[in-house]
């Protein structure tokens, strides 16, 4: 029993040193000067524009990745392929964003859409502008919804869908009435992960944003910007807001996980 206690102390000690104490300290440092100054520094015009920009990007990326993620999952699990090559290839591509450094994601977009890039001649600006940030965010948060929905789809099987089809339901009806309700918690979990990643993405966005004040500075870029301009309190305040979003994410994950696995 003492051995067990020793292991517990070691595990919790590791978590304390690595996670709890640093995060606790930042929260303390943030609110040390008082809640009023925190409020002031997250309601500056720069902070407000960064906040809305981040939400806008996250909303677009989540919408795209949710629709395409569910479609990809349906295709991989329910699709009929004559041989194994297409689904294997799609699954490999789906996992690729996990293997790519965020900086490489940003670089790759610059090489395609930037000056001298393959698609540099588009009528609208991509790099150093909103479309570039959205593309970067969609890339890094791409696998989550599909990865969460695929196992759920396998688990529920297609008997109910076949029954619906037999009774004359159209594909669309079957999807809305049978498939979607069956996978909804998996989708919700994937959406939470996608949202968290989209809001928190830094590396890829930092390469393509160009950091145009009031236009392409997201929340995470604002944290870096303030830190480098020696506005430590401001950086902490913006971080606190992001940490709050992270906590909400954790809470949702904890609430959704048992439902998704049920």
């Amino acid at each position, binding site marked *: 029993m003492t051995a067990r206690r020793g*292991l517990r102390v070691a595990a919790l000690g590791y978590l304390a040193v*690595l996670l709890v104490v640093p995060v606790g300290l930042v929260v303390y440092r943030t609110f040390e000067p008082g809640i009023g100054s925190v409020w002031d520094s997250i309601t500056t015009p720069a902070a407000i524009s960064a906040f809305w920009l981040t939400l806008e990007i996250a909303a677009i990326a989540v919408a795209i990745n949710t629709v395409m993620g569910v479609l990809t999952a349906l295709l991989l699990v329910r699709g009929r392929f004559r041989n194994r090559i297409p689904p294997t290839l799609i699954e490999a591509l789906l996992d690729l964003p996990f*293997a790519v*450094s965020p900086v490489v994601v940003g*670089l790759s977009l610059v090489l395609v859409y930037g000056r001298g890039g393959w698609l540099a001649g588009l009528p609208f600006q991509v790099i150093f502008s909103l479309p570039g940030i959205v593309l970067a965010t969609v890339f890094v948060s791409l696998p989550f919804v599909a990865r969460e929905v695929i196992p759920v789809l396998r688990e529920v099987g297609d008997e109910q869908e076949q029954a619906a*089809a037999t009774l004359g339901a159209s594909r669309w009806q079957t999807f809305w009435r049978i498939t979607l309700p069956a996978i909804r918690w998996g989708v919700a979990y994937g959406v939470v992960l996608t949202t968290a990643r989209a809001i928190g993405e*830094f*590396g890829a966005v930092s390469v393509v944003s160009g950091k145009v004040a009031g236009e392409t500075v997201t929340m995470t870029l604002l944290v870096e910007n303030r830190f480098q301009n020696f506005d430590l309190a401001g950086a902490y305040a913006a971080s606190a807001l992001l940490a709050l979003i992270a906590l909400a994410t*954790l809470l949702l994950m904890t609430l959704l996980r048992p439902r998704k696995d049920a």
Partner: protein
Amino acid sequence: MSTAAVTTRAGARSAHLSSRGSGALALGAVTVWLSVIVVLPLAAVVVRSTDGGLDAFWTSVSSRQAVSALRFTLAVSLAVTAINAFAGTLIAWVLVRDEFPGKRAVNALIDLPFALPTIVAGLTLLALYGPTSPAGIDIAYTQAAVGLALLFVTLPFVVRSVQPVLMELDREMEEAATSLGASPATVFGRIVLPNLVPAIVSGCALAFARAVGEFGSLVLISGNIPFHTQVASVYIFKQLESDNPTGAAAVSVVLLLFSLVVLIGLRALEHRRSRHDGA
């Protein structure tokens, strides 16, 4: 009754036919989506890396600074992965087999590094382990700081991959071993650990792939000192900033290879295992 069966079959067949049409549409949409978002940009990196021919590619990746950054990235990622194999298994074991107040909260906390933006993670670690540390520990801009940041962001991988396996594990064998006089250490080493190894390996592979490419949490804490704390991802960023996209692309290709080899190896391993299980 037979007429009912016939109509049912006809209905099912027509559903299949229409599914084939929408299936092709879905395949097309997914292919276009993955191509535009993932394949096209990564292809651009690979193509641009050899813009000046293979010689230029080789010159870029074998420059002293690039080699040093890549070597450090590899070494620190391996070290972090090894620590994760150990600490992650320990934490998973404590979360599954131990009971203590606040366990649910600790369990939820494990995902914090996934939820917290990486730049905030870096800032957070800098607050406690940087120049203004209240504990008097200042390791900012050292290789240890890079390792620490990577440990932070990779924490969940091994824990979350080992935990479910440990939960499913049948306790009977362990009880039998204990009743036959095996010590807890023997039981763990001979019975529990062998069952966990596949999960530990897959968690480690994910942690390694993540560590190799990590950027956000290192920007503030690594100090980006060439030949010392500069990792490959930051090196790539600097190359791009100093208008050398070809050099940046070349090192990116090497970095991609690191994590791809590991992840493809993992997939192959899982594939082989699932085939064995099925047989």
